[in-house]
């Protein structure tokens, strides 16, 4: 049996961060250790705690063990004011979480539990991007439609301050 769907459920119900230790102890990450690189990456994966994509995106860091706050500054709270911003934010969070796992997996390419999570986030990010582009115009040029004028040119450029 594949426990993938069950895992997804766990991810969705976690409040502030996902405790991989707890998931592992409860047998929810069955390949946690067997998937680790046996050679030299001397890293205790079991101690890694991940924020949810939402919290990670606001903080700029998916890994709670690496997070360092500066003085008493709290990360900005990102609030969507309309449907377009809501969809964009949701996509950005998922893309960021996938990117963080990408960097992690560069160093630990044999970590199967992180790889599964990468796939989950990455697939969700692709789906959200697709959905956003259909409604609001291209993020990548290939999604520009057949109608003139060429949508790629006319949709807002990122430095203009609107998402």
């Amino acid at each position, binding site marked *: 049996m594949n426990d993938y769907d069950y895992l997804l459920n766990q991810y969705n119900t976690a409040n502030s961060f996902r405790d991989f230790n707890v998931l592992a102890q409860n047998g929810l990450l069955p390949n946690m250790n067997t998937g680790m690189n046996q*050679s*030299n*990456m*001397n*890293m205790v994966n079991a101690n890694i705690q991940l924020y949810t994509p939402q919290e990670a*995106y606001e*903080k*700029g*860091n*998916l*890994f709670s063990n*690496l*997070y*360092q706050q*500066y003085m008493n*500054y709290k*990360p*900005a709270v*990102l609030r969507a004011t309309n449907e377009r911003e809501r969809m*964009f*934010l949701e996509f*950005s969070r998922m893309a*960021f979480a996938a*990117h*963080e796992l*990408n*960097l*992690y997996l*560069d*160093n630990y*390419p044999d970590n199967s539990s992180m790889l599964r999570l990468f796939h989950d986030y990455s697939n969700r990010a692709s789906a959200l991007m697709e959905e956003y582009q259909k409604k609001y115009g*291209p*993020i*990548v*040029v290939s999604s520009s439609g057949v109608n003139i004028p060429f949508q*790629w040119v006319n*949709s807002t*450029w*990122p*430095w203009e*301050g*609107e*998402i």
Partner: protein
Amino acid sequence: MWKYEKRLQYPINIKKKDPKMAKIILTQYGGANSELAAALRYLNQRYTMPDNRGKALLTDIGTEELAHIEMICTMVYQLTKDATPEELKAAGLAGNYSEHGLDVYPSNADGVPFTVTYFSSTGDVLANLSEDMAAEQKARAVYENLIDLATDPDVIGPLLWLRQREIVHFNRFKELYEYYEKQFNNPIQPRGEE
């Protein structure tokens, strides 16, 4: 090759013009510890990494730095948007305006243009990765200095976010450094097995 995504990695929407702040944030575009120096450093060093881990990490972090260049330029652009020559002069940007108008040009906070001598490449993986770790720490420190000088929450938010990215990147480089160091100091382990 690269593909462009028409979006910022993290949203920036600065409503209040502030050429003085633009002048100092510009340093993270074209200064010694800038995002531009970071991107060029990693993308330049990646070719000779001893195994695929290093090639992947330097490519992926180098690519992210390109997105950070775009964030910094966006901040400078928005902070100087519609600024008059008088306002720029008052902010100490008369020299910058005379050379570049309102274009965002890579130089440090004092107007010294970017130079590739801000980074090195030694052909030695441990020396290169030590430099990469130091670069991330120095950029973190610069972001903290900038946050100390900033007052607008629209500016502070992205600066905090970029500072946090330096911390993550530093740790990834450190892990890679320790991995290579261990391999090189232990002849039983074959080098560069991938």
